[in-house]
């Protein structure tokens, strides 16, 4: 494997389909909602009943243009819809209304961060189209069942250039795209619900060769992990075929993530002839230059730019900066906290990525779901910086202010968490700890000076977190020296 990957270069291009979180479907007023009972979000239009006609949802166009701006695309203000014809039970009209030769957005690019390095990926196009229904395969029934709720849910398809060079890059690219969708608030981007799906184009070529190898297309790749695994598998398969003296056939394959294999779906010979032509039920549509600019102005600073700025401006390390920037809610909280300009910015980051993230993960909630505010967090950090509370006591404060609508100062007062710096009180604690830990004292004297940390910890425990650890450390070492 590693030998092969030294010999060959992997070339990947992605077509990402993302469901947009509009109120209604793309061509009718049915609710765009996940998880409803089967066939309850349908009407004659999305059912493709005879005589019904589509009417395009303005919000879909706006959302797609926003994504276009986020990916630096040229916006085709004058555009149209086209029909893509094929028969399948999940497609009630037997054609999908999509865009063919004039997508809403073209010629963009996306910067992704690979190990701290910026890598630019070309974006060929973004177009809008309708989603198909869902086939349900259940052994209890003889046939396949069809649920049309998803028919007509708006999608954008984001097509990348074949600029990705590894499964890892493709995964990061997809994560970055998903992050942007969430940032823009145009998609829920939940992969487990199939909100974001990818078709993956893979080819390999001997390193140094200019021409691309023959590519295959893989359908049904529905998670970040699956993108990685599917590409690894397919690249490997292709390299092995070439190594064995074979050649790659241009074909469509289906990724089976559970089994970790792909199988041929269609060969080049039975390639579909989609017979695209302009959708005659819809006319040309135009978005004003003013509206295009307005939508551009609504695009916020995006994750990658944000992460780079955090590193530069606040000296955060790359991983922390990316972690903070990757979530809209998290970065908004960080930005607001920083804007208060009350405390060390790195401390904010450390708390957010450390204890706060831990709590959020445990409770499976977002920072916006808590009682925590940028004011309270920075107030708490200020209390630490002023020496009023210890880090340990701060954790207790955090536990409170994340749940209840109370200020850190109140918590400190109420729970008596203020740090004890009074010499005599601390000395009593130190004496007590030293007396109870004679072995540690002996070890320290025997040269194991690192047990001092342990003793400080014991003192902190004894003081219920209120002792000033720096003072305790001082006291302990002088007291041991006197013993």
């Amino acid at each position, binding site marked *: 494997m590693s030998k092969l990957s030294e010999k060959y270069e992997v070339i990947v291009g992605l077509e990402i389909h993302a469901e947009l979180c509009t109120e209604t479907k793309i061509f009718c007023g049915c609710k765009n909602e996940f998880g409803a009972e089967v066939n309850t979000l349908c009407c004659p239009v999305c059912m493709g*009943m*005879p*005589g019904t006609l589509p009417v395009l949802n303005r919000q879909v166009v706006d959302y797609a243009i926003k994504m276009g701006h986020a990916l630096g695309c040229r916006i085709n203000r004058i555009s149209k819809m086209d029909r893509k014809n094929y028969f399948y039970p999940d497609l009630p009209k037997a054609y999908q209304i999509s865009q063919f030769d004039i997508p809403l957005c073209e010629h963009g690019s996306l910067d992704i961060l690979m190990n701290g390095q910026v890598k630019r990926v070309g974006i060929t196009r973004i177009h809008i189209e309708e989603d198909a229904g869902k086939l349900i395969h259940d052994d209890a029934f003889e046939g396949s069942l069809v649920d049309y709720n998803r028919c007509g849910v708006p999608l954008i398809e984001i097509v990348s250039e074949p600029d990705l060079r590894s499964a890892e890059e493709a995964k990061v690219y997809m994560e970055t795209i998903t992050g942007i969708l969430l940032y823009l608030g145009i998609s829920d981007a939940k992969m487990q619900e199939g909100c974001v799906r990818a078709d993956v184009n893979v080819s390999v070529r001997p390193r140094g060769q200019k021409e691309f190898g023959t590519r295959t297309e893989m359908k049904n790749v529905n998670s970040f992990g699956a993108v990685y695994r599917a590409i690894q598998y397919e690249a490997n398969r292709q390299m092995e075929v070439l190594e064995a003296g074979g050649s790659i056939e241009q074909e469509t394959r289906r990724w089976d993530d559970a089994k970790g294999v792909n199988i041929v779906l269609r060969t080049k010979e039975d390639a579909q002839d989609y017979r695209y*032509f302009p959708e005659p*039920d*819809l006319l040309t549509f135009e978005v004003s230059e003013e509206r295009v600019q307005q939508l551009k102005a609504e695009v916020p600073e995006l994750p990658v730019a944000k992460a780079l700025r955090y590193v530069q401006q606040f000296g955060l390390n790359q991983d922390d900066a990316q972690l903070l920037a990757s979530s809209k809610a998290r970065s908004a909280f960080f930005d607001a906290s920083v804007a208060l300009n009350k405390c060390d910015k790195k401390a904010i980051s450390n708390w957010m990525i450390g204890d706060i993230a831990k709590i959020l993960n445990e409770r499976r909630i977002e920072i916006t779901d808590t009682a925590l505010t940028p004011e309270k967090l920075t107030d708490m950090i200020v209390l630490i910086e002023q020496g009023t509370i210890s880090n340990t006591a701060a954790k207790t404060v955090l536990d409170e202010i994340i749940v209840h609508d109370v200020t850190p100062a109140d918590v400190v007062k109420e729970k008596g968490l203020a740090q004890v710096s009074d010499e005599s009180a601390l000395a009593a604690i130190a004496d007590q700890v030293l007396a109870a830990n004679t072995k540690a004292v002996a070890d320290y004297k025997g040269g194991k000076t690192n047990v001092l940390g342990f003793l400080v910890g014991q003192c902190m425990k004894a003081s219920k977190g209120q002792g000033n650890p720096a003072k305790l450390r001082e006291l302990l070492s002088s007291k041991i020296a006197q013993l």
Partner: protein
Amino acid sequence: MNLYEKSAAELSRMVRAKEVSATEITKDALARIEAVDLKVDAFLTVEAEKALDRAAWVDEQVAAGKDLGPLAGVPVAVKDNICTKGTKTTCASKMLGNFIPPYNATVVDKLLAAGAVIPGKVNLDEFAMGGSCENSAFKATKNPWDLTRVPGGSSGGSAAAVAACEVPLALGSDTGGSIRCPAGLCGIVGLKPTYGAVSRFGLVAFASSLDQIGPMARTVDDAALLFRVICGQDTAHDATSKPFNFAGMGPDIRGVRVGLPKEYFGTGVSEEVKAGVLKAVDDLKALGAQVIEISLPSTRYALSAYYIISSAEASSNLARYDGVKYGYSGRRDGSLNDLYLSTRSEGFGREVKRRIMLGTYVLSSGYYDAYYKRAKMLQRAIAAEFDEAFSQCDVIATPTSPSTAFKLGEKVNDPLAMYATDICTTTANIAGLPGISVPCGFDSQGLPIGLQLLGPKWSEARLLTVAKCYETAKGGFAVKEM
């Protein structure tokens, strides 16, 4: 005069004046249908009970002194490719033989809002593809003027029902002449509106970019009355519909410039038809119109462009009939492909399959540019030519059909001869223009001849004015005694 012979305008006036009830009118119409439809075969579905319930409702409105719509109590037949909620809408196809839409077409909602009573649904060529009404999967409608002849198509049922006085009004649809040709062959008035003037929502699509619903009537006033009810933008349901205020007809046609395009009077058009149309043009001149010769050279390509564009769209529009969601369903004991193939091969008639095949071909890989795109470019050229012509004249006069009604069976096995019957009418659809057919006399066999008037987009009022002035000058149009 029998009730069933009266115009819609007169019936509506009588209902208002309480001279007759909607129920009486409806009963009379139903009796008339029962009496003559055995011979004419215009109706596919008659819903007597529903119609009488509806008439009773109108009468209640009258009794309660409520505001009445312009079609209060007027029977209107609806072509069976226009969806009626709760009533079978078959498109005269085995494919939709049992299809009951859970929604109304916008025009049907408008009819009902105007107080109309719908006695039933009328015959057509399957999915509106044909020029004789013989392509119906259920029956061939006959021409009331000669029951051995076709009524024309595809709105043959609508035309025959109106011509035989079964109803005063009917809705038809026109993709390449399907309102105007049967109107011409049955001696009635048929208006194909400007593309976008009437909502297509609920009209089962044949060729989306060409289809328009329009009125068919025995008088120009009635056609105008029905048109006024159904026109207007339908932003909620049809993105191709446009705002349109129908101004109504003017008093005379003095100074109106009538263009005569020589290309519409060439070979293929019968001498008798030519003579009839030219006589009508002379009549218009006598009414103060100015007649000028014009040329529309691209007309010779219009039929080809029409068959390419309409078949391409049809091949896609009719792909949804696959036995899964509604309508005829074929073999269920095999694979999905077996279901698809058997449903479509058994459910569609020959002409429909022919067009689906042609449409699939012209869109298929490698042929799109040569056929479809070229036809679309030609469409632009034809539209531009009309624009140019309308800088010289106000309306264009041509024959509606190249010949009068032909014998049943005469052209069934000759698709090209059948296609050629649309030769004078397809240009209006290609260019999106309004066109009207009015009766202009008879040939030596006593068969009606149709005069077609074409105008620029949104010139329906002008076309109807010319038609109305002509009608008045002729002392009204003849009605066939049956």
